[in-house]
């Protein structure tokens, strides 16, 4: 049992936003496969088709994607959220986005009747103009958006940070000042690939976000820095597909981990990772995940 901002998770693995999270049925399936909690696809104020394909490609060392925040709008997503809440048996966190406080507030309010266990604010998508990163790199906006949502909801608010900033701790502090209950780090790292045969950028959107193995050391560093400087819990995400990765992230300072691209390896990734963490804890004489959260900070 892991407690994250009051949510009780049966294990510390959480489905990351934007991964198999477009429908209630899919979220339920992931929960049944072993995830301790699930985060929905980021939902916005209006329906969006997202960018043209190719919207995701697998590289040798990670993945590049530029989905462009496709989503059916909060109105159309509400039934999916309700379904997930009813049948998943695990906490369901609603990821939301907007281009300003008003939109964030509206989407959050619009989804409240679905009774999400928490909200995750996506202020960090690196490839949707006017959303995400353009907002998440500005401390003032992050604080404003966070407090706008905190004012209208009565469940914990997590804020998901982008690594594409000079100082992630400053953005984390802004979120905390806005009332965030936890931080989620990291969203994808801006990246790009070009097809040398044609000269075309591979993604429909030309550039996108890097995820998977390639970004794990970056995510570890972000979580490590946040843990050293923040009082609220950190949820670690980026490049986790094995229990060893998860333990590393937890030692850096994460209270729980999210798994995104790692789902490529199979949906049993949640079961395997949480079992692996459990065994590791047992072998080393620990009783719970909390005992190793941030221990890298004590090793000199």
């Amino acid at each position, binding site marked *: 049992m892991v407690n994250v901002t009051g949510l009780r998770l049966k294990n510390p693995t959480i489905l990351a936003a*934007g*991964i*198999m*999270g*477009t*429908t*209630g*049925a*899919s*979220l*339920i*399936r*992931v929960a049944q496969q072993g995830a301790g909690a699930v985060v929905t*696809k980021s939902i916005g104020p209006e*329906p*969006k*088709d*997202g960018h*043209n*394909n*190719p*919207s*995701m*490609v*697998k*590289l040798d060392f990670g*993945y590049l*994607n530029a*989905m462009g925040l*496709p*989503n*059916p*709008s909060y109105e*159309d*997503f509400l039934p999916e959220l309700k379904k997930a809440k009813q049948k998943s048996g695990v906490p369901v966190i609603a990821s939301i986005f907007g281009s300003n406080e008003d939109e964030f507030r509206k989407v959050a309010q619009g989804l409240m009747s679905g009774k999400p266990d928490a909200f995750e604010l996506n202020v960090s998508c690196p490839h949707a103009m006017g959303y995400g990163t353009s907002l998440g790199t500005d401390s003032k906006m992050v604080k404003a958006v966070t407090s706008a949502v905190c004012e209208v909801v009565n469940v914990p608010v997590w804020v998901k940070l982008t690594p594409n900033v000079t100082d992630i701790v400053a953005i984390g502090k802004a979120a905390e000042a806005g009332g965030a209950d936890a931080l989620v780090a990291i969203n994808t790292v801006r990246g790009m*690939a070009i*097809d040398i*045969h*044609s000269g*075309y950028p*591979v993604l*429909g959107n030309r550039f996108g976000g890097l995820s998977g193995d390639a970004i794990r050391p970056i995510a570890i560093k972000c979580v490590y820095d946040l843990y050293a400087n923040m009082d609220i819990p950190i949820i670690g995400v980026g490049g986790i597909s094995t229990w060893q990765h998860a333990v590393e992230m937890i030692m850096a300072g994460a209270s729980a981990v999210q798994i*995104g*691209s790692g*789902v*490529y390896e199979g949906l049993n990734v949640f079961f395997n990772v949480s079992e692996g963490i459990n065994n590791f804890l047992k072998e080393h004489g620990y009783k719970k995940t909390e005992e190793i959260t941030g221990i890298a900070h004590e090793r000199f």
Partner: protein
Amino acid sequence: MIPINSKITKIVAETPSTRTFFFDYSFEYAGIGQFVMVWIRGVDEIPMALSYKNAITVQKVGDATSRLFEIEEGGFVGLRGPFGKGFTIPKKRENILLIAGGVGAAPLASLAEKAFSEYSYVTIILGARNVDELLFMNRFLQCGHVYITTDDGSAHRCGFVTDVLEELDVSVYDRIYICGPEMMMKKVFDILEKEQALDRAEFSLHRYFKCGIGICGACCMDETGLRVCKDGPVFNGKDLMDTEFGKYARDASGRKKWFL
């Protein structure tokens, strides 16, 4: 993998609306019924079943397919794949039935050939709008008995594949494979359900694909949550019971679009 740069070595006009594009790259280990993502640079990337190890057969329906039809022999596209789960290959001496509607014949023609070469007994129901649109008729004719139906009656009998199906004794077939427009497949599904043949049937589905590799969740089915791009596109009939199949699909944004 980033898309493999593939040269179009030959283009065959199969019917007025479909063309087969052969590539210099062959997916030797692809299972029959698996698909590739075809990148038409500057336009879009779209899923296509492999109609041969080294070819796709495309119906012109919109932006990307229209642009593809403008590319000539010697031109290039990018290919990622093969992805997804294909058909179960029938065993020797098994009696199989293929039901193909329109461009749904694309993956089934390879299956017919494979089954025939492995000594299965093959029966095909091939349907199309009209006689000119009957796809891969010659490939099917070489593999077994072919029933033909056209919506307008321009070849053999007028009607739908289901009309033929209803006249057949379904119980004699060890396996039944279906690919075509969803409403056609749904009608077949209903008949097979009644005949208690769903567990012997495999349907190849279409949904809107984004990633094509089972991550983004764009193609998930209600209520199972199965991903058409990864857990499918070929599903056993049983896995489609009480699902959205035949009722609705989702568009690029994830909103439901009801079949009429």
